[in-house]
């Protein structure tokens, strides 16, 4: 049994899970189960939102450890499901290392992604329907959709520049709120608040928050608290971005808006 390869493989799978937005306990349990399935009893895993440490002791008594640092990442449920399926498969059938590595390597190629224009459409629809949902009119929804598009373009551009999440959220909030104010000044939209809130929903840290709660319940208090703090920070960033936009608009146009 080649324990180096087993260690690399299990770390890789854990990394993939964490990168696609899995909870901490899922990452730790998955790695541990793979190690158990391949006959080890001494696997230790420690993961926090931006780092994974896996350590094992081979039957000959040699200790092996790997650490992988996690950069900021998004959410990719399709990739998450693929890695989860692979983990299940490995634990049940324990194929040879060669086959397992081949399967793990092929995952990135099997991942399905929506084309960019579908994503843009989703940004538009999401913001538009949340505007309607919060009580806007049909014209408001149109404005909300446009604001959603502006957020999409802003996020894509800033992601290319590798800006951090906080700044991206501030910028997205500011751009969409400014656009909402502008559209209502032209007379297209009526309720600036509904339009802005509808578009803001695209920036809300939903995954971070729910995952934080599930982590806390699973006993990973440290990761849970880190993520809760992150969610609160992003909430503050949203408020800051839209706040700056509103304040600027009032400075320029006076009491009109």
């Amino acid at each position, binding site marked *: 049994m080649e324990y180096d390869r087993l260690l690399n493989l299990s770390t890789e799978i854990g990394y993939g899970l964490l990168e696609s937005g899995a909870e901490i306990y899922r990452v730790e349990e998955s790695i541990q189960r793979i190690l158990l399935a391949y006959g080890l009893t001494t696997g230790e895993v420690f993961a926090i939102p931006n780092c994974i440490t896996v350590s094992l002791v081979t039957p000959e008594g040699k200790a092996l450890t790997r650490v992988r640092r996690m950069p900021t990442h998004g959410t990719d449920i399709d990739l998450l499901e693929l890695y989860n399926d692979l983990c299940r498969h490995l634990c049940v059938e324990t194929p040879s290392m060669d086959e397992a590595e081949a399967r793990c390597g092929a995952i990135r190629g099997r991942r399905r992604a929506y084309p960019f224009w579908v994503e843009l459409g989703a940004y538009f629809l*999401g913001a538009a*329907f949340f505007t309607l949902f919060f009580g806007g009119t049909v014209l408001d929804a149109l404005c909300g959709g446009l604001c959603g598009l502006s957020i999409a373009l802003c996020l894509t551009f800033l992601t290319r520049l590798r800006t951090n999440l906080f700044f991206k959220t501030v910028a997205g909030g500011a751009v969409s709120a400014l656009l909402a104010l502008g559209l209502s000044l032209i007379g297209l939209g009526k309720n600036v608040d509904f339009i802005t809130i509808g578009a803001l929903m695209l920036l809300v840290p939903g995954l971070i928050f729910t995952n934080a709660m599930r982590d*806390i319940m699973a006993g990973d208090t440290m990761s849970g608290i880190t993520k809760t703090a992150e969610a609160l920070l992003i909430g503050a960033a949203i408020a800051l971005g839209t706040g700056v936009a509103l304040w600027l608009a009032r400075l320029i146009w006076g009491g009109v808006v």
Partner: protein
Amino acid sequence: MDAFLQYFLPCFYSFVACIAFCVLFNIHTGILICALGGALGWLVYLFCGPVFQSDILQSFVAALFISAYSETMARIRKCPVTGYLLVAFFPLVPGGGIYYAMEHAINGETELFLDVLLHTLGVAGSLAVGVLLVSSVVRLLNIAQRRRHVRRNAAR
């Protein structure tokens, strides 16, 4: 007609919005199940309105429902619960609270600002407690099931 406007339309809106969010999180299989979770969750929220008269309690009950729904669906489809939970929760997220709190802050209305801010945190907290409760019950059930499994294997 009233019931249509009051119950059906918001749920329909949240359904479509949830479909859009599924695309943003790259969910391919089971989009409709996720979006249905969002719509049903909001329906529960609306139905609880006349009983509780408080959106914090309403959010709590809706959060309980959505978590239970997501855990069940994840069990049936044998895939991580993350995606379902994530998308179905969006209609409940207090995005409006963040905005109005900010607006009051800019207008210099400190009292209103604190009021709205605390209320928003309250809603977020009740959502959190809802998720916590259901996911800990599910963990209990899981462990109980595993134990029974182990015991049965040992008896053989």
